[in-house]
C-alpha cells in the first residue's frame, strides 16, 4: 500500500519533558526488515518482468492493489482512459527506471540505505536544497502513490466522510473538481497535482549533528539495533516554545545523521483539505502535508493517449480513474492519527506513557521509537 509516515502530534499545546533515568517505552517497528521478504514474494509475480539485478535492493516495483500485470502481460485494466501502452511505458519504463536508479544509489550509500522511503524523501529533499538522490526517491514515492490513487471503474463522486470533508473545505464537490482541474492545467512544465490534508505548518527544518543528552546516549546504547538497522528516536520537546503548539521533532540515527524540524500542529478546526501543485519530483510530505490523491502531470503520463490535450486527461482521471475508496482510507487514517492527541502535560510516569503508546501501536505507522528526553542542540 502507499507509504505514509505520520508524526505523533500531541493535541495539547503544552508538553512536559520528563527527565527520568530510565526511558520511555520502546516501541520499535522495523518495516525495512520486512521489505526483503516482500521483495522476494513480489518477485515471483513479476513474470515477464525479471530484474537481473545483482544489487540487494530494498525497494521493489510494487504492483498496485488491482491487477496491472496479467499472465499475458496486458495491463489494460485502466482502458480506455489510460491505455495499456501508456501504463506499460509509464510503469515499467519511467517508474521502473526510478526504482532502479534508487536501488543503485542505496547500494552505494550506507547512510541512505537505512531509511524508510518516506524519510528518505524528506532527508534528500534537504529543506529545498535537494541532493541528487532526491529525484529517484521522490519519484518512486510519487508513482507508488499514483497507481494506488487510481482504480478501474473509479471516478464518480466520493461518499460519506470524504464528501463531507470536501464540502466543508471547498464548498461543494464541483468547486473542488474545478479547482483540481484548474491547478492541473496551470502547472508549468512537469509536476504533480495533489489533494492533501493539512495538519501542520512546518516552521523550520534543519539538519545538524545532534548532541544527545547523557540519558539519550545511554538509551541508545542499550537499545540500538544492529548496524544495518534504523534507530530513529522521535524526540518531542517543548524546547524554546514552552506554551505554544510548536514542537521540535528530531530524527537521530546513531553514528549517522540527524535532522530536526519544528512544526506547529494545527488545531482541529484549522485542519483542512487543500489542492496543491508541485514541480518535477517534489511531494507535499516534505512540508508535512498528508497526501490523499495525486495526479501525474508529467507529459509521459498522458502524451500517448491524449497528446497535448491535458484537459481531457484530467477529466478522464476525475471521471473514471480516481479511486475515492483509496482517498477515503487515507483520509480516515490521517484523521485517526491526528485525533489521537496525547496530552503530554499529564504524562508524569513512564508507565502511563507505555500504556498510551501500547494503545496507539496499531494505528501508528512509520513511528519507530518514542523517547521523551531533553536533548542539547
Amino acid at each position, binding site marked *: 500500500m502507499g507509504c505514509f509516515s505520520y508524526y505523533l502530534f500531541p493535541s495539547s499545546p503544552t508538553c512536559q519533558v520528563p527527565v527520568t533515568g530510565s526511558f520511555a517505552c520502546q516501541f520499535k517497528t522495523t518495516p525495512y526488515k520486512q521489505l526483503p521478504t516482500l521483495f522476494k514474494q513480489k518477485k515471483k509475480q513479476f513474470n515477464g518482468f525479471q530484474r537481473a539485478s545483482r544489487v540487494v535492493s530494498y525497494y521493489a516495483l510494487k504492483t498496485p492493489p488491482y491487477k496491472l500485470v496479467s499472465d499475458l502481460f496486458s495491463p489494460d485494466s485502466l482502458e480506455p482512459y489510460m491505455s495499456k501502452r501508456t501504463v506499460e511505458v509509464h510503469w515499467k519504463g519511467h517508474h521502473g527506471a526510478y526504482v532502479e536508479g534508487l536501488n543503485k544509489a542505496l547500494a552505494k550509500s550506507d547512510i541512505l540505505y537505512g531509511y524508510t522511503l518516506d524519510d528518505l524523501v524528506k532527508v534528500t529533499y534537504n529543506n529545498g536544497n535537494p541532493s541528487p538522490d532526491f529525484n529517484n526517491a521522490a519519484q518512486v514515492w510519487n508513482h507508488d502513490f499514483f497507481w494506488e490513487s487510481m482504480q478501474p471503474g473509479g471516478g464518480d463522486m466520493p461518499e460519506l466522510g470524504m464528501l463531507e470533508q470536501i464540502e466543508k473545505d471547498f464548498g461543494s464537490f464541483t468547486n473542488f473538481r474545478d479547482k483540481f482541474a484548474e491547478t492541473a492545467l496551470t502547472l508549468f*512544465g512537469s509536476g504533480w497535482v495533489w489533494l492533501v490534508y493539512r495538519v501542520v505548518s512546518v516552521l523550520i527544518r534543519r539538519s545538524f549533528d545532534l548532541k544527545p543528552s547523557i540519558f539519550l546516549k545511554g538509551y541508545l546504547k542499550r537499545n540500538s539495533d544492529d548496524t544495518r538497522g534504523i534507530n530513529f528516536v522521535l524526540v518531542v520537546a517543548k524546547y524554546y516554545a514552552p506554551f505554544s503548539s510548536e514542537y521540535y521533532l528530531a530524527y537521530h540515527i546513531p553514528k549517522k545523521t540527524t535532522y530536526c524540524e519544528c512544526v506547529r500542529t494545527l488545531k482541529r478546526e484549522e485542519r483542512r483539505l487543500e489542492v496543491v501543485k508541485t514541480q518535477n*519530483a517534489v511531494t507535499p510530505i516534505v512540508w508535512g502535508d498528508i497526501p490523499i490523491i495525486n495526479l501525474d502531470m508529467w507529459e*509521459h503520463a498522458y502524451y500517448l493517449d491524449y497528446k*497535448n490535450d491535458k484537459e481531457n486527461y484530467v477529466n478522464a482521471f476525475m471521471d473514471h480513474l480516481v479511486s475515492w475508496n483509496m482517498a477515503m482510507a487515507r483520509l480516515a487514517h490521517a484523521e485517526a492519527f491526528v485525533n489521537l492527541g496525547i496530552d503530554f502535560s499529564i504524562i508524569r510516569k513512564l508507565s502511563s506513557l507505555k500504556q498510551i503508546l501500547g494503545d496507539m501501536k496499531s494505528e501508528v505507522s512509520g513511528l519507530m521509537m518514542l523517547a521523551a528526553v531533553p536533548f542539547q542542540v
Partner: protein
Amino acid sequence: MALRSLVSRKTLGLGLRLQFRGLQTFSLPDLPYDYGALEPAISGDIMQLHHQKHHQTYITNYNKSIEQLHHAIEKGDSSAIVKLQSAIKFNGGGHVNHSIFWKNLTPVQQGGGEPPHGNLGWAIDEDFGSLDTLIKKMSTEGAALQGSGWVWLGLDKESKKLVVETTANQDPLVTKGPLVPLLGVDVWEHAYYLQYKNVRPDYLKNIWKVMNWKYAGEVYDKEHS
C-alpha cells in the same frame, strides 16, 4: 529585439498584427520545411503536433499575457504586473525557444547533420576538443535533465567562448547569463515521446542527424564579429 527579428522572418503576410493601440502580437512562424522532412530522426506526427499545437499554445497564451500586461501597465497596477511575470516567462520563453528550434533543424537533403565548418567549427575544436565531444556533452546533459527543459550550445558574449547550458521548463538561454543561443534541443517529453517513448537518449542520438550547423555558424559569425 531578438524577438522582433524572429517574428518578422518567415511569417506569411499578417505575421505582425498591429492593433489600434499599437500593441504588437505574435504569430506562429512557418517551418522552413515539411513536417515529414525530418524523418526518420523526428517523425512528422511529432513535428506537426509540436508546431501546430504546442508552439501555437505558447503564442496564444503569450499574446494574452502581453495584453494583460499592457492593461496592468496602463493602470499602474504593480502587483498585477509582477504576477504576470511567470506566465510571460513561460509562454514567451516557449515562443522564443521554439522559434529558434525550428531553425536549428533542417532535412538531411538540405544539409542536416553536416558538421560545422568555418569559424564555428574551429571554435568548437578549441573549446571542446572535437565535435564529437561537444555532441556527447550536450546529449549527456540533455538526458540527465530532470523534468522539462532545454539543452543549449551558446556563445558567451563576454568571454567569447562556447558553452553548453541547460535551462528548465521554457526559460530562454538569456536567463543563464550573457549567452547567445546557437543551438537548442528541446528535451520536453512532447518533443520525442510519440516516437521514442521514454528513451530520451535515443532521441538525443538521432537529432544530430538533422541538426542545422550552418544556421548555428551564421549566428556565431554575426555575434562574434
